[in-house]
């Protein structure tokens, strides 16, 4: 029983994730194929839209994988292949959006929110420190206030 369980677990260690890339698509040159895999992880499948073409089984994803490999074999640089796809499908085809004027909010927005938050916390802490200093030495009561307190205390005594 234990032995079977152990064997089962051992075999499970050797399983690989299912791949969308079909053996026939792969390039003979392992270095080039590795580059193709890395590059296709950055290209969005336009059909499924939340998968890379490396993960997707869609027909278009396969066509794009094959196209990408053809261009790699032809000697294109990674940037050239990305540019080729962006010219046809727009920036959306890249899973990592490029840094440019229209995406500044996307890239630097979180940083901006963080800075604003830090300023807010700093202001809050500084104010609280100021507030503590005041409460340690409260303003002395005015003569009028002293008289009112005395009157209220007298009233209390008389009732008791």
């Amino acid at each position, binding site marked *: 029983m234990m032995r079977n369980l152990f064997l089962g677990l051992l075999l499970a260690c050797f399983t690989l994730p299912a791949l969308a890339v079909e053996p026939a698509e792969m390039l003979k040159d392992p270095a080039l194929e590795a580059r193709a895999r890395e590059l296709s992880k950055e290209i969005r499948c336009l059909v499924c839209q939340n998968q890379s073409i490396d993960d997707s089984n869609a027909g278009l994803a396969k*066509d*794009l994988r094959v196209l990408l490999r053809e261009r790699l074999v032809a000697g294109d640089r990674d940037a050239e292949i990305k540019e080729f796809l962006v*010219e046809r499908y*727009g920036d959306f085809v890249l899973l990592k959006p490029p840094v440019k004027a229209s995406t500044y909010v996307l890239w630097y927005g979180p940083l901006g929110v963080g800075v604003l938050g830090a300023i807010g916390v700093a202001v809050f802490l500084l104010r609280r420190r100021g507030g503590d200093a005041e409460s340690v030495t409260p303003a002395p009561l005015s003569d009028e206030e002293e008289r009112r307190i005395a009157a209220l205390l007298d009233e209390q005594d008389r009732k008791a």
Partner: protein
Amino acid sequence: MSRLLYLLPLLIFAVIAGYFTIPILTKKDPRLLPSVLIDKPAPGHDLPALLQDKPGLGPEDLKGEVKLVNFFASWCGPCRAEHPILMRLAAEGAVPLVGINYKDRPEAAIGWLRELGDPFGRIGTDSDGRAAIDWGVYGVPETYLVDAAGHIRYRHVGPLTGQALNDTLLPMVEQLRAGKG
């Protein structure tokens, strides 16, 4: 001033809520992508003819007049759904139609056109889908409005509807024709 500061989170919430609500209210499908090829020359491919008695599509055939270029395939369900609209357009002679048969078996495509009717003036075959990639097609059916200079002016993703035709495509056709004449 500091009182107004308390309204800031509410304001931020309103902006974010608006950002996500407006597309829902205007029924904008976020999966539909704008074409980056708008106002750019349509890709010139030499696409062989599907039918013997109807020409294919050469690089120069997209120039000269305003036309709709429709990517279709016999295996594509939504293409079947939009076909009556294409037939109606052809019958009315509203605008010339050019078909590009996308990754299809020729026999299947010919049979499909025999069954449902052939609205196209020309049909090119894109058997490996390479021309479609150059057009930025990501799912058939897709329909492109190409002007007389051969530039892409509009793209409709998915099956054509009467509403899309009447509200957008046909008025644009008129506009382009008027601009030219």
